[in-house]
């Protein structure tokens, strides 16, 4: 296989061609979830709980069903009552029962905005009138929002069948603490005993939403033969297929999911909310059904990331060596277990080589919408707290904030608290780039301050599929199974063009639906350019082998006597014959006469992704009278490996910085105001 990351003579990779989806998006032609429509489609609407916690005594839908123009009404009673089953789908570990209960409440509502019923009608106004006719009788229960209040004895219990996992002996009373996790290395007490200085702090982060511009949206249709099609915007159409099949008791082969353009996801579109409901409404009504969340529904009923309380204590010797690091992470999971506390634990101190580490995490449910993934899920929360304490150590020791990080930097051979010994990594290079950057040395004005923080994320590979076809005129189509949320179509086209030796304009990338390309994991975890790129490169290489064979047939020589160079077939040497090069177009024109269409599909389960490290430097100015905080200067340094399309990589980093600024300064969920 061509290892693009190691090649030095790249012609396409590393350049900045116009994005293939750019014109469609800026001219409004791109079809997002809310844009899509089918003939005869109905309008769906969802009735949501006004209560944070309540028992559902009765749902009377008779008046809604009787309203002219209403074609379907459903509640959880129309869905299979599935049992608890844990699996790894979409964003990570999940429980199908919880996903089902989140899509439509059964027995209890667990957060304000929890879906309790849905309708499909001939018009939006009829659908909304029908919602008003659904009578839900609730027994309102005490609720709990705050993570530490949810953990406290006597807190309202959301799930009487939830007992804290990871505790010995096993508890006999239910709790809102779904899981306790401990990771440790060395001897934390001995570490602190060696410390000359100790710093500690308690840090509270707000739950914030991914706030993708596009709301959740889909159109679903299911025929009398049971064949279903879902048109949806998401980070993974195979994920939608898996969840719909499980939650509706359908065969995967009976569901086809067609991806539409996606207007942002950031992890929040790696699970389903609407698609199983739309399918069920379509099944009841016999018509296509469209469901689109309002912005308000997005905030009330789709997952933000966890709010959290993180307590950190670290100790260092006079020379700056950090000898002990301890943290307790309390992460909101929302109404169902599954906060990203585990990666939060793993990432908190991953930037450092520390002999004695002890981290404890709690996955805590409360009466909030179930959390969803959000850019390196769990990591920014714990890193934020840990990095503050590293700064405090530096201040106590009179050390520069980067110097103390360099002194303790993780490197090849560093053993993490989760047991993995790092291979070659780029954290020291990131710190060196930060230290040598002009920003770090620039003078500050009155009421201005500077901070630096660093972070770590694993990166992953995973299952991806891509196919490469040569069209009749020699142009090339690349089809992949990865929704494009950050420029992956451009990257796939560029990698195929690089391997083929042709201009990227000759390659058209598209995203295949679940029936036209092999299984592909969700777009997320920083995996698509790596894993789907691997599939694309391998498929392209198989196409080149076919092109060489076709050229050999045209020249009537052995395929071994043909080379592929600069987008053309050429004789491998003087002994092969004196043939003029054959272009891709020339070979494509004769494809029918030399064996038929030229193309290949490759599926991979990519392994070996390298971890990523970053450092951000930020200057702020604070108005001491009003508290107004203004960002004066911001510099981000990221170990990105080989940037296929640098503009997209820069966009990812800029977007992450902006979201971090929003998290720090402007955003939070406020209940009960």
């Amino acid at each position: 296989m061509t290892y693009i990351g190691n090649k030095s003579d790249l012609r396409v990779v590393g350049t900045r061609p116009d994005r293939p989806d750019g014109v469609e998006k800026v001219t409004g032609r791109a079809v997002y979830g809310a844009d899509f429509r089918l003939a005869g489609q109905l309008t769906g609407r969802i009735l949501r709980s006004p209560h944070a916690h309540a028992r559902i005594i009765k749902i009377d839908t008779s008046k809604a069903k009787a309203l002219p123009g209403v074609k379907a009404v459903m509640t959880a009673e129309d869905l299979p009552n599935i049992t608890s089953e844990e699996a790894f789908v979409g964003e990570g570990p999940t429980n199908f029962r919880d996903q089902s209960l989140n899509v439509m409440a059964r027995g209890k509502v667990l957060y304000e905005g929890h879906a309790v019923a849905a309708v499909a009608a001939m018009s939006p106004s009829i659908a909304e009138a029908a919602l008003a006719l659904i009578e839900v009788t609730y027994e309102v229960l005490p609720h709990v929002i705050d993570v530490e209040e949810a953990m406290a004895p006597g807190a309202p219990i959301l799930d009487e069948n939830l007992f804290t996992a990871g505790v010995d002996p096993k508890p006999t009373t239910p709790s809102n603490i779904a899981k306790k996790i401990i990771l440790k290395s060395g001897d934390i007490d001995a570490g602190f005993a060696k410390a000359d200085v100790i710093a500690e702090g308690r840090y509270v982060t707000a739950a914030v939403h991914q706030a993708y511009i596009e709301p959740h949206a889909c159109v679903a249709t299911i025929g009398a033969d049971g064949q279903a099609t879902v048109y949806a915007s998401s980070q993974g159409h195979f994920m939608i297929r898996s969840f719909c099949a499980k939650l509706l008791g359908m065969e995967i082969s009976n569901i086809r999911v067609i991806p539409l353009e996606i207007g942002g996801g950031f992890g929040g579109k790696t699970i389903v909310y609407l698609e199983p409901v739309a399918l069920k409404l379509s099944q009841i009504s016999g018509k296509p059904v469209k469901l689109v969340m309002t912005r308000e529904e997005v905030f009330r009923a789709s997952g933000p990331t966890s709010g959290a309380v993180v307590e950190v204590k670290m100790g260092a010797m006079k020379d700056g060596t950090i000898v002990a690091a301890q943290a307790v992470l309390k992460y909101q999971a929302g109404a169902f277990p599954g906060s990203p506390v585990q990666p939060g634990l793993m990432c908190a101190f991953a930037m450092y080589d520390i002999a004695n580490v002890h981290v404890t995490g709690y996955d805590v449910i409360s009466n909030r919408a179930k959390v969803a993934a959000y850019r390196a899920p769990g990591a920014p929360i714990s890193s934020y707290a840990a990095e503050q304490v590293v700064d405090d150590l530096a201040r106590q020791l009179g050390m520069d904030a980067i110097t103390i990080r360099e002194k303790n930097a993780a490197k090849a051979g560093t053993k993490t608290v989760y047991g993995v010994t790092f291979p070659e990594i780029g954290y020291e290079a990131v710190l060196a780039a930060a230290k040598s950057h002009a920003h770090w040395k620039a003078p500050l004005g009155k009421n201005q301050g500077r901070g630096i923080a660093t972070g770590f994320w694993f990166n992953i590979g995973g299952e991806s599929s891509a196919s490469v076809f040569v069209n009749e005129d020699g142009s090339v189509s690349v089809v992949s199974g990865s929704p494009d949320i950050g420029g992956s179509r451009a990257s796939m086209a560029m990698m195929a063009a690089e391997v083929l030796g042709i201009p990227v304009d000759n390659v058209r990338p598209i995203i295949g639906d679940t029936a036209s390309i092999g299984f592909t994991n969700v777009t997320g975890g920083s995996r698509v350019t790596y894993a789907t790129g691997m599939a694309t490169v391998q498929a392209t290489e198989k196409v080149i082998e076919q092109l060489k064979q076709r050229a050999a047939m045209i020249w009537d020589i052995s395929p071994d006597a043909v080379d592929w160079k600069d987008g053309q077939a050429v004789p491998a040497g003087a002994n092969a014959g004196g043939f003029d090069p054959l272009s891709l177009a020339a070979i494509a024109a004769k494809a029918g006469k030399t064996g038929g269409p030229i193309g290949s599909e490759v599926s991979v389960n990519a392994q070996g992704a390298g971890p990523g490290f970053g450092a951000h430097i930020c200057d702020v100015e604070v108005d001491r009278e009003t508290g107004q905080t203004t960002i004066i200067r911001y510099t981000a340094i990221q170990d990105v490996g080989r940037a296929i399309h640098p503009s997209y990589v820069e966009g990812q980093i800029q977007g992450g910085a902006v979201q971090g600024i929003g998290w720090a300064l402007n955003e939070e969920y406020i209940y009960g105001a």
Partner: protein
Amino acid sequence: MPKVVISGSTCREFTGGISEIEVTADTIGRMVRELDQRFPGLGHHVAEFMAVAIDGVIFQDAHSEKLPENAEIVLIPKIGAG
């Protein structure tokens, strides 16, 4: 023989607290089966929910991957998406 290191408390519940195990297996898939035979339920848990780091390089669902003779094998939770 490859040495399996269990750093998290969830897997240690299957092993009764044992955190290092030598295995005879030469692939991840065979290691999963061997762990399940020795600690019932652990193999399934590893297969479904854990990634495997071989000398620092993380593998997910890569059951045919070879385990070098004296490799350090670390079981960690699968890394999800974001």
